[in-house]
């Protein structure tokens, strides 16, 4: 197994700041916008973006929720392992809001398809956008494209793109694992 660094911590930080600015450009004060981090890994990107938006751009009253799509996936009983559910936390109204889904890697598009169905359980959004840190080109199973993308990556199917969020000992990085 070999791995190659696609993005360093510094590059991820620059990209997240750019994505935050693009969000502000389209949503101004976020009065009618809610951010939804997709479980399990999109929530890390969402948390970072929220921090940047509040601390560095003074966006107050930002609404961020987490959405788990496990029970909406189309591969139930098709894999060897059971699907693992995570917490959904949405304690605000979604009806008539601009929803921004946030995920780490956009691959086949099936998770986003599931998320589009799952969010309907909470109401009818005015519109839905997708923000993704990594967009794996040429691997989509469904006609889904991001509204905001951090970096586009050309990876073949047996390669894996992994986003590691740093802790005290390691820094953030995105790897291409073969």
């Amino acid at each position, binding site marked *: 197994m070999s791995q190659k660094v696609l993005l360093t911590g510094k590059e991820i930080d620059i990209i997240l700041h750019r994505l935050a600015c693009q969000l502000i450009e389209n949503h101004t004060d976020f009065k009618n916008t809610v951010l939804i981090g997709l479980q399990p890994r999109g929530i890390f990107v969402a948390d970072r973006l929220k921090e940047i938006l509040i601390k560095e751009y003074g966006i107050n009253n930002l609404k961020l929720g987490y959405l788990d799509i496990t*029970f909406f996936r189309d591969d139930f*009983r098709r894999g060897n392992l059971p699907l693992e559910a995570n917490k959904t936390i949405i304690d605000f109204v979604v009806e008539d809001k601009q929803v921004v889904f946030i995920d780490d890697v956009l691959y086949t598009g099936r998770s986003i398809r599931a998320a589009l169905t799952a969010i309907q*359980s909470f*109401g009818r959004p005015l519109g839905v956008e997708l923000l993704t840190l990594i967009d794996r080109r040429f691997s989509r199973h469904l006609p889904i494209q991001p509204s905001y993308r951090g970096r586009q990556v050309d990876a073949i199917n047996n390669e894996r793109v992994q986003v590691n969020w740093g802790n005290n000992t390691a820094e953030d990085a995105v790897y291409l694992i073969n």
Partner: protein
Amino acid sequence: MSELSVNHLLGIKYINQKDIELIFETADHFKEVINRPIKKVPSLRDITIANLFFENSTRTRLSFELAEKRLSADVVNFSAASSSVKKGETLIDTVNNILAMKVDMVVMRHPNPGAGVFLSKHVGSSIVNAGDGAHEHPTQALLDTYSIRETLGGVAGKKVVIVGDVLHSRVALSNIYALQKQGAEVMVCGPKTLIPKYINELGVKVETNLTKALQWCDVANMLRVQNERMDISYFPSTREYSQQYGVTKSILEKLDKEIVIMHPGPINRGVEITTEVADSEQAIILNQVENGVAIRMAVIYLLASKIK
């Protein structure tokens, strides 16, 4: 994620503590789902479930049906009163005929103890026991202990007394297994005639004085007197029973702590508990009903995930 160690839920006796934990963790997610504006997920849209009720039931059948529909399963209902069972058909024939219509899972209530175990050995589909005679009622015990976990923060180390008609109660036996597997201390309380002879083999305390039992416990699970299963008289009169084993507000006020009151339903108000107690803050009876749907969704979801 781990999976259940069993392909059927026939009784708490046949599952382990890890299975119970997995069911509870999954039920936590489903409890959030059933509190959404749209309370439905599409997970089981290619699964068909038959609810076979050879014995009367209102809330259990409703709860199972709701759980199945919330998971988007196709549901067929069968009740013995209006079926060919009346014409002399055997249990296996009835079930095999239903399974021939491509049913993936069977939820069954039957008056005979062991009916679920028997069926699981003869048919290929996944079986959920919704009560078999005076034997087991596993989903009731799961939702009862889940409600204790939710109210008191855990089950381990808690003292739970099961009061009333233990002899005829499948809820009591399943609760004893479920509580013990999760590390709780269990006591049964009731007239000696309604305590089964084998009770000592189950490793539970026995008490015939209600006040002493309530003083000892953190949770009191009040059972209904099952008149329909009584072929002889087990106590002199309902009035005398309620005087000795009915929980009233005044008994609870005399205790030096606040205990949790549970009841599997249907309640005979004024017999095992008074209306005042049933509707009090201490009673979590309606929480049990809500949790019942989440627990049954979890059980069905986890068993269905093993159907290939």
